[in-house]
């Protein structure tokens, strides 16, 4: 059974969502617009869900109240009763009442809450709606019977409502690949909603393949078929007009058909279209004026911001005040649980602000230094310095606190992986156990989110390609149950995640030969490959050691995508494998993304930042120590040859004058096992910087990861070490030409 706090937390979310829908409806009502049927239906569904939830957890009072509210909303969404301010007021009172009931639930109290009067008022609304005049529902005899048969009552009502308004009804038939159905459908839905109201989705099997699905989408629209077709061009869908639009005489938009019956068994009334003229005859005298009057008489209560707290307490209906005694005025909006769900974007914003504050602090510090150079204000300057120090300390604490808010334990992803392991091993007939260590290691929420797909793919791979079947394992002298180990730990300011399986591992020579066979590398290049380089070929696009994809790992997403995804969150991935023993992947990640430590460097009078976590060391090199091997500049560092990349040359920067000194600085950066040295003119220092994304024009520029602000409002570019290393390892000349073209394109 769900725990009380979980129940309260979910119920509160639902009630909040419900009140958001009410606010939206109230706003529409005030502007005398057409009410959005989606909002009304969403409100109904929220209450419906709440009722189910409360019933599960045995909260009788909530069940009772939500049951009455649900009936009331059902009458509204089915058009049996028009939504007016009075009804909305009662709904808002329910929001408050739910709040009180939830407080009581979390305190394990049940005393002193009497919902009887509210329930009675809700029931009165429903009764009124049942007594209302019913306009006969338009017949749906033009619609395919198999379609009518699966519409819910609500969908049928919406369909009739569209007919009543003289809109055309179209059927859009689209085919989707099941793997991408939600993406494809979302795009199509957006298009369709431009044209009208999406009434329902009817999935049907296309019969040819399990991976494809056909979707019939019913849309009601005021547009002509041709206009519709124009919007849907390129969407690869079939469009069928089920019923043509019928022009409506009255331009009145408030035809929300008060008190119409949508009794399902209602016999067809005449010919299709014959019922349309009924449309603008108000069947209830209260219909067009009701909402306007009600809204006017309680003008001060419709402020949206205060809507939840106060919307219901002031009431236009005199008797209502007397009927709502149980709802005490000392309303509190406090959250009932200690956890807060915060939109990550808001945290990002805060994070940026903190970073900018840090800049202000740096600027103040600079000012102070200037200030101190004049002797006369020494006393003031000292006080200033003290205050600055305090501000600095608080700022650091603030930054720390915000970072911590963003931190979530990796266990969140690991739990999902455990489920996947269970499922895939079941599917593939393998016996696999997942051993998890360090689930409490914390990482920035965004990194954890971005990490879940790559990890899932790697786990799938490990089971599908790595771990042998139980029989095979026994014959190899291994325990029949395979093990996947997931280990996470913090190492300095980085987090390392290791994924290790005890399957059959990979032979680097096989990988090399496969790569040559597939043409990923040339045969000559293959001869010179080291073991590590060969292993890394699995990260090359289009590489897969097996020719056929299995249903577990699928086809399409390879290790190259995994690597790209990890690189996107500034991570590195390394692989080690011993044939017969298993494979180990090691992912190294920064703890957070938003603020990073950077090394500020200068070359050809330009300033750049290098993420400090990819810097291994910085050294000073005399020009005479730089040698050339096969046209590449290299330097010998502790007995190892380090290839050099001149940053000014890489970005094709022109120097105003030749370099003065006879030495350069080399920033040694590493990406996985590759190390290269970036040649720069000067090292300016280390600084915490806030990364800002680049605009689309520069996003494709190799070597640049983002921009950041340094002191004195200077914007500098942040280097993307990964792509610089990758470019450098390619044929250097070809890379440069391509980049040159890109740079020109950007200009």
């Amino acid at each position, binding site marked *: 059974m769900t725990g009380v706090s979980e129940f309260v937390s979910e119920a509160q979310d639902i009630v909040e969502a419900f009140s958001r829908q009410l606010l939206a409806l109230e706003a529409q009502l005030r502007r005398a617009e057409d009410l959005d049927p989606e909002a009304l239906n969403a409100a109904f569904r929220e209450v*419906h869900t709440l009722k189910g939830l409360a019933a599960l957890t045995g909260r009788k009072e909530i069940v009772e109240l939500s049951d009455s509210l649900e009936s009331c909303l059902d009458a509204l969404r089915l058009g049996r009763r028009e939504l007016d301010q009075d009804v909305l007021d009662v709904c808002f009172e329910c929001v408050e009442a739910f709040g009180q009931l939830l407080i009581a639930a979390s305190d394990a109290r049940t005393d002193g809450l009497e919902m009887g009067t509210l329930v009675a008022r809700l029931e009165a609304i429903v009764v009124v709606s049942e007594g209302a005049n019913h306009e006969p529902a338009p017949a749906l005899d033009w619609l395919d019977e198999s379609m009518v*048969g699966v519409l819910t009552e609500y969908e049928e009502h919406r369909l009739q409502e569209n007919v009543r308004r003289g809109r055309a009804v179209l059927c859009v038939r689209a085919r989707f690949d099941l793997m991408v159905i939600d993406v494809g459908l979302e795009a199509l839905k957006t298009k369709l909603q431009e044209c009208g109201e999406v009434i329902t*989705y009817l999935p049907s099997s296309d019969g040819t393949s399990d*991976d494809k699905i056909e979707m019939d989408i019913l849309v009601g629209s005021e547009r002509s078929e041709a206009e519709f077709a124009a919007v849907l061009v390129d969407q690869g869908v079939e469009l069928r007009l089920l019923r043509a639009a019928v022009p409506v005489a009255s331009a009145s938009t408030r035809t929300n058909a008060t008190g119409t019956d949508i009794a399902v068994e209602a016999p067809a009334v005449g010919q299709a279209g014959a019922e349309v003229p009924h449309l603008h005859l108000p069947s209830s005298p209260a219909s067009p004026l009701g909402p306007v009057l009600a809204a006017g008489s309680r003008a001060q209560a419709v402020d949206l911001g205060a809507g939840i707290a106060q919307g219901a307490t002031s009431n236009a209906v005199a008797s209502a005040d007397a009927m709502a005694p149980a709802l005490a005025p000392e309303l509190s909006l406090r959250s009932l649980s200690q956890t807060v769900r915060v939109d990550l974007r808001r945290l990002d914003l805060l994070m940026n602000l903190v970073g900018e504050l840090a800049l202000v602090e740096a600027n103040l510090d600079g000012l102070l230094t200037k200030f101190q150079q004049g002797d006369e204000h020494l006393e003031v300057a000292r006080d200033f310095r003290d205050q600055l120090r305090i501000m600095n300390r608080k700022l650091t604490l603030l930054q720390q606190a915000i970072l911590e808010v963003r931190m979530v334990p990796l266990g969140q992803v690991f739990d999902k992986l455990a489920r996947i392991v269970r499922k895939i091993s079941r599917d593939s007939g393998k016996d696999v156990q997942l051993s998890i260590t360090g689930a409490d290691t914390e990482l920035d929420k965004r990194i954890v989110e971005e990490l879940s797909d790559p990890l899932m793919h790697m786990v799938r791979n490990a089971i599908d390609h790595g771990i042998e079947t139980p029989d095979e394992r026994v014959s190899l002298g291994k325990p029949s149950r395979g093990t996947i180990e997931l280990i996470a730990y913090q190492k300095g300011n980085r987090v390392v995640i290791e994924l290790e399986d005890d399957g059959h591992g990979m032979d680097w020579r096989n990988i090399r030969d496969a790569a040559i066979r597939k043409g990923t590398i040339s045969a000559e290049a293959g001869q010179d490959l080291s073991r590590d380089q060969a292993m890394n070929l699995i990260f090359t696009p289009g590489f897969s050691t097996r020719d056929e994809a299995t249903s577990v790992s699928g086809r399409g997403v390879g290790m190259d995508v995994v690597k790209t995804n990890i690189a996107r969150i500034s991570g590195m991935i390394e692989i080690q494998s011993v044939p017969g023993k298993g494979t180990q992947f090691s992912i190294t990640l920064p703890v957070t993304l938003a603020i990073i430590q950077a090394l500020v460097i200068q070359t050809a009078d330009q300033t750049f930042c290098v993420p400090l976590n990819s810097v291994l060391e910085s050294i000073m090199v005399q020009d005479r120590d730089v040698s050339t091997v096969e046209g590449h500049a290299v330097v010998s560092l502790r007995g190892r040859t380090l290839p050099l990349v001149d940053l000014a040359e890489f970005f094709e920067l022109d120097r105003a004058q030749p370099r003065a000194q006879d030495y350069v600085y080399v920033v040694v950066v590493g990406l996985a096992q590759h190390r290269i040295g970036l040649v720069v003119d000067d090292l300016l220092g280390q600084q915490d910087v806030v990364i800002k994304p680049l605009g689309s024009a520069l996003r494709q520029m190799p070597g640049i990861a983002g921009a950041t602000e340094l002191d004195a409002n200077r914007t500098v570019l942040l280097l993307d070490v990964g792509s610089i290393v990758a470019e450098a390892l390619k044929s250097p000349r070809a890379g440069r030409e391509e980049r040159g073209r890109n740079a020109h394109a950007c200009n």
Partner: protein
Amino acid sequence: MLTHRRAFPTDNPILGLFMSILVLLVDDSRAMRDYVTAILERHGGYIVDEVSNGFDALRALPRANYDLIITDINMPDVSGIELARFVRQTKRHAETPIVAISTDASVSDQSRARTSGVTRFLAKPFTADELLAVTRELGDGPGGGR
């Protein structure tokens, strides 16, 4: 590839006891999913795949042989009725029992759900025993399953 996970009524009654029953659960309330999954996995020897909406259900269906489908009726976009209709069109799950959970679907919704292929209704709220009675009956009883 998934065939080892056959439907539960096997020819061998003893073996049947040891084979887990694979259930697809479609509900947009997390609490409801947790509740049903907890009952089935803890007490009934079922394995439950959970999805929170109709689209995900459409995606899950071709990937496994489900022995039982439990769906909420009232869901946005693809409702339980529409899902049932679709399920009946597929070869893989043409005969799979479908249990619809609903608080109180209107009478017309209920009758349409039945014609669209829903096997049983289960009214919220239900106890663990009520749920297990329905799933066991559909699994082992005469005429249930396949």
